[in-house]
């Protein structure tokens, strides 16, 4: 089956400002795809182009095989969208909001009642159906908005910063919900700037200053983006150990981290073997030696840094020539 979202060289320019710069990627059906990046990087602009709110300046994109230039209507019928504002009508009752969106999406008449009950249950608002929406706590509003966006059982669900301004407990609950929705086969396209949320995604794209810097599963990003594996060594004399290990073949870098030693090796297995042998030979006692996982945050920070550095160099080269 073809991918749910296919984007090629998508670009959007506002005046002099390039909000999205030749972004290309695709989202597989049924996966949770995360669009990660700082505020203003171009996440929302991309999502808005895919939803038909905004016209691209150039480039191609298809959602569920429908062209975003010519088949916007077909796209809209088959997607759900929820933004950070949880665009509900605050002065309507919970059930009135649900009925309104159900009517707008023209949910089949015989299915309507069942879908409304489902949305109420999912949002945990079954006994608050008559409450005025504006009076609900943020977490509830968020789930009600999600329920409204899913009434028509869309194939792709777009979530634009769905958890901003929501407390940590509600955020966790929300991600559990997203997991359930994806398990039922709905493709989820979500933007966020929370690193911990990125871990919930099947695949991630990092967007920074309008450009897509990297894309992959969280594991691929953590290991693939680093030049080697990080090995943490607990040793009796870390300073001397670092000096010893640094000159060994296959070790890229070694540094003392608190009481421990962090060694970046080209090959994980061979690196560990070599380090153990060298340290044993020097009569340094090793209590533990194990590879450690770099956090996504570390990966992204380092990627963003190298991106900035490349930009600066580029600017300097341009100025020098």
């Amino acid at each position, binding site marked *: 089956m073809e991918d749910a979202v296919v984007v090629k060289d998508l670009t959007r320019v506002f005046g002099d400002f390039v909000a999205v710069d030749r972004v290309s990627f695709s989202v597989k059906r049924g996966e949770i795809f995360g669009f990660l990046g700082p505020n203003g990087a171009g996440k929302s602009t991309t999502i808005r182009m895919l939803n*038909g709110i905004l016209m691209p300046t150039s480039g191609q994109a298809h959602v569920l095989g429908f062209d975003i230039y010519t088949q916007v209507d077909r796209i809209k019928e088959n997607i759900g*969208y929820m933004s950070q504002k949880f665009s509900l009508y*605050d002065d309507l009752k919970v059930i*009135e909001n649900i009925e*309104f*969106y159900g009517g707008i999406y023209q949910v089949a008449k015989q299915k309507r009642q069942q879908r409304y009950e489902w949305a109420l249950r999912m949002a945990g608002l079954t006994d608050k159906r008559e409450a005025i929406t504006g009076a609900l706590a943020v977490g509830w509003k968020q789930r009600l908005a999600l329920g409204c966006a899913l009434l028509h059982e869309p194939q792709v669900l777009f979530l634009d910063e769905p958890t901003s301004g929501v407390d940590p407990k509600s955020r966790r609950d929300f991600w559990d919900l997203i997991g359930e929705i994806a398990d039922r086969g709905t493709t989820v396209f979500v933007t966020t700037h929370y690193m911990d949320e990125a871990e919930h995604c099947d695949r991630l794209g990092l967007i920074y200053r309008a450009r897509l810097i990297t894309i992959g599963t969280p594991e691929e990003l953590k290991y693939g983006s680093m030049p080697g594996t990080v090995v943490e060594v607990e040793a009796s004399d870390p300073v001397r150990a670092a000096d010893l290990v640094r000159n060994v073949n296959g070790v890229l870098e070694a540094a003392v981290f608190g009481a421990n030693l962090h060694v970046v090796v080209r090959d994980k297995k061979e690196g560990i073997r070599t380090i153990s042998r060298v340290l044993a030979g020097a009569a340094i006692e090793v209590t533990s030696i194990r590879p450690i996982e770099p956090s996504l945050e570390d990966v992204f920070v380092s990627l963003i840094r190298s991106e900035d550095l490349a930009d600066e160099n580029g600017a300097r080269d341009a100025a020098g020539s």
Partner: protein
Amino acid sequence: MWERIVQIFKKEMIQIFRDKRMRAMVFLPPIVQLIVFGYAATTDVKHISLALLDEDRTTVSRDFVEKFEAGRYFSVARYLSSPAQADVLMDKGEVDAFIYIKKGFEQAIKKGDGADVLIVVDGTNSNMASVTLGYVNRIVNAYSEEILTEKVMRLASLRSGSSVPVLIGPTVLVERTWFNEDLESRNYFIPGIVALLLTLIAVMMTSMAIVKEREVGTMEQLIVTPIRPIELIVGKLLPFAVIGYIDVALITAIGTLWFGVPLKGSIPLLFFSTAFFLLPALGVGLFISTISATQQEAMLSTFLFFFPAMLMSGFVFPIDSMPPAMQIVTYADPMRYMIHILRGIFLKGLGVRYLWVDFLGLFVLGTVVVGFAVMRFSKRLK
């Protein structure tokens, strides 16, 4: 298509009638306007206070003064002893007019020579001054005629001795006003309030309701749904048409039953013409929503449209008195047609036979404005 329109309509009605301020916007303005135009804002000139200086002090001069005091228009506020006193009173605005009867008034009349009376009117309010002068002229003419008739009769009976007097009178202009016999300004204004309020509701409430959705972010949510622009527009405008009708009924009921404004024409025609007027008015509201980012902006833009439109509509100032260039501009003002239709229906009982030009004007203007606004609105959605 209808399903979505009904959904938007229903939602809008719930929102309007659940919001205390919006509810007030539906019922309060018509009542306030009716009170203002029914009671306070009257251009009728009554209770003109006079300063009187009668140097003649004869039965004839007293008789003359009585003519002023008899009617409901004048009342003598001050009796003066010298003309200089009048200056002060006029400056202070304590009196509106000053009548000065010089010594020898009686003698002059009895002799048959013309007798002079000086009348000074405060011209600060030009409208009031000219009306006052009109009243004065009417009273003086009536008085002269009386004297003349008396004289002629006496002469005739003296000559012929017969019982049938020969009447030779001057040509007399008989004034009669049609359609608003008492020249009550409320009869003139209250039908116009219908147009005034329909404009406010259709332009301000509509544009604010649309802009509010954009401000809150629900518009974006709607754009992502498969709703078509035309469904959204119709669903969004219809509630304000309904409210417009509620207000037309309210104004007509209070205007005729409480203020006694005549409604000579047909009520169905009144409601029919409301629809024609709502077309351009809602179009302007929709257009303003496309140029305003916030509700405040929408409100300001509404007034930028509303005041010129009202002033050029003939609601207060007659279009016939405007310079020709301005008169042409008024053809672009939907209120102009509606005011004419309303006064025609209320005061003259006119039918389509006489009003079709105004209906046509509204229809053409409405189609153009709505067409343009819908185009802009749909484009903004994309």
